């Protein structure tokens, strides 16, 4: 899972996980990297290649996100790609 979604609020992170899991996507909540998102503690890992479908599914369910990022563990290079 090479993509990461950050959120404004825990409410939306939890809903994103539920919405995407119920549609059969592989996702995983992880502690949100603070440099990406000083917000709700968690971020959601997902397959970056699926981002269009994933984002559409979230919009359809009123889930608000903060940003979409590449997930690179143990790197300081958190380039933002939207």
């Amino acid at each position, binding site marked *: 899972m090479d993509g990461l979604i950050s959120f*404004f*609020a*825990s*409410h*939306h*992170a*939890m*809903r994103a*996980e*539920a919405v995407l899991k119920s549609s059969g996507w592989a996702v995983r*909540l*992880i*502690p*949100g990297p603070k440099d990406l998102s*000083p*917000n*709700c*503690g*968690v*971020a959601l890992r997902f397959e970056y290649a699926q981002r269009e479908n994933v984002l559409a599914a979230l919009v359809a369910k*009123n889930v*608000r996100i903060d940003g979409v990022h590449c997930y690179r563990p143990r790197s300081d290079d958190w380039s933002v790609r939207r």
Partner: protein
Amino acid sequence: MIYFDNAATSWPKPPAVCAALSDYFGDAGGNPGRAGHRMSVAAARIVENAREAVAELFHANDSSRIVFTQNATHALNLALYGLLRPGDHVVTTSIEHNSVMRPLRHLETLGVELTVVACGVDGMVDLDRLHHALRSDTRLLVTTHGSNVAGTLMPVAALASFAHEQRILYLVDASQTAGAIPIDVQHLDLDLMAFTGHKGLLGPTGTGGLYIREGVALSPLIRGGTGSDSAHETQPEFLPDAYESGTLNVAGIAGLAAGVNFLSEIGIDAVKTHEQKLVAQFLAGASEIPGITLYGPRDGALRCGVVSFNVNGVTPSEVGLILDESFGICARTGLHCAPAAHRTLGTFPMGTVRFSFGWFNSPAEIDVALAALRQIGVWARSELATH
């Protein structure tokens, strides 16, 4: 023991409610939305699953519009103080609970103008009178959905349309009906609805919430940490965080979700049918007992699971004591935090004896209570005759 005080708080709770509390303390005891470790995530999941369950129960299509509070009183205060400003006009009815009346009386001292529309002796609102009380400068109409004294149900759909004809917001106090009478906030077209978790929703005390329609902006009652937007020293404006500062009652909310899920399995229609059947059985039986005065609508279909009565010549507290000590029946007596409602029924300041039924009560328990009231009636008449 027969428990007829479900309007104060429901008892018993479904076993799943106790299990949910125990699971929280056992396996998921973190602080929701504050960290990314598994305990915090598990707690956040509990809260958000509960929010979804509540939103589904009330047919709110966006669960972020459900904010959790300590109880209905807290939710009503959030709505009233969040909305009303000096110079605003607000309309309510004469059967409201003090959790509506006291904030409004206080707001009145701050310069909010208040009109209290008188209800009939059965607690029914006079629609004409209410319609006339709404003015072009009225900001809010607030009414209960079901009276905690007389059991009277308000015609909330009609009231919502009156209010909206004049662009007035409508706040409903669903303390007595959430979980007992089907509520569809979209179909009923409600702007704000306060509910409590520990009555009809079968959850623990210390839980409740407010539904806030999209586009309705409230100023928060309290401000503080939310786990979100932590880089800023100002309160976030997005829901639900804007109104949920401070650590939530996660254990209670876990139990609340279990109560709501239990109700969703049964269906609220079934709960309503069950409670109205018990009410009809009680009213039919009690109306044949000499010396008993019944209050509220005679038609069980116009009521939630609450009935009020008096045994002529005996104080409500005495009847309550006899019911408890001699018959093992738990009833609530007195004014039920609603002096205005008792003035409306003509039972102020003495009050009434109140039975309030729930999903776990049975027709056999109503029969036991009716037999007890027959005996108390016989005793009261002989007492009155000899003194």
